[in-house]
């Protein structure tokens, strides 16, 4: 699968840490909206306090499904760029396990794209989370 220059998929062991600084290319000139969504591990899962979530990822299917989804979303919403990062393994409460970055010309398509990507991701991508209790 040859890489598409406006699609980035990354699976990272553990927490994703702080987001990178905004790397918009001013020479591009088309960027009008950058949406960054971060999924944070909550302290409670199904009514019980947890210490962390453990993420299992079925590869290579997960990366391929994410790539296909990202390509579809970029095309459908006319995006400039989409970046997806997801944790594998244990991620503690309050830490980031998922980051989606969408660049578009305008706000509407950026927000719509992010919303649709997450909805579809939650149904189709082979990633599972299991709570880790204290």
């Amino acid at each position, binding site marked *: 699968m040859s890489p598409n220059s406006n699609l980035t998929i990354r699976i990272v062991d553990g927490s994703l840490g702080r987001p990178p600084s905004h790397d918009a290319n001013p020479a591009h000139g088309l960027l009008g909206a950058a949406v960054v969504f971060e999924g944070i591990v909550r302290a409670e899962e199904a009514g019980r306090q947890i210490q962390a979530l453990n993420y299992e990822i*079925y590869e290579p299917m997960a990366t*391929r499904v994410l790539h296909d989804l990202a390509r579809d979303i970029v095309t459908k919403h006319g995006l400039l760029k989409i970046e997806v990062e997801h944790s594998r393994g244990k991620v503690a409460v309050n830490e980031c396990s*998922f980051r989606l970055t969408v660049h578009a010309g305008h706000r509407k398509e950026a927000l719509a794209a992010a919303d649709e990507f997450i909805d579809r*991701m*939650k149904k189709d*991508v*082979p*990633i*599972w*989370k299991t709570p880790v209790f204290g």
Partner: protein
Amino acid sequence: MLVRVLIFGPLRAEIGTDAIALELPPSANIAAVNDALAARFPGRAAFFRSARLALNSTFARPDQPVNESDEIALIELVGGG
């Protein structure tokens, strides 16, 4: 033929294994895998009968044939994002 269905996530803990071995006829397809899972776990028959399966890392159609060397995974109850 003997096939294995990989199990992930909370379901793994629930049923106590990360792979389910199933004995199927040589001409079995994905639908037969679903039926065999439902028969193995009658208390969750409806869930297993309609569960999505991946065949060699791609979502499978019910009519796709299955070979002993194929990798089959149950892709349900996913929770990414």
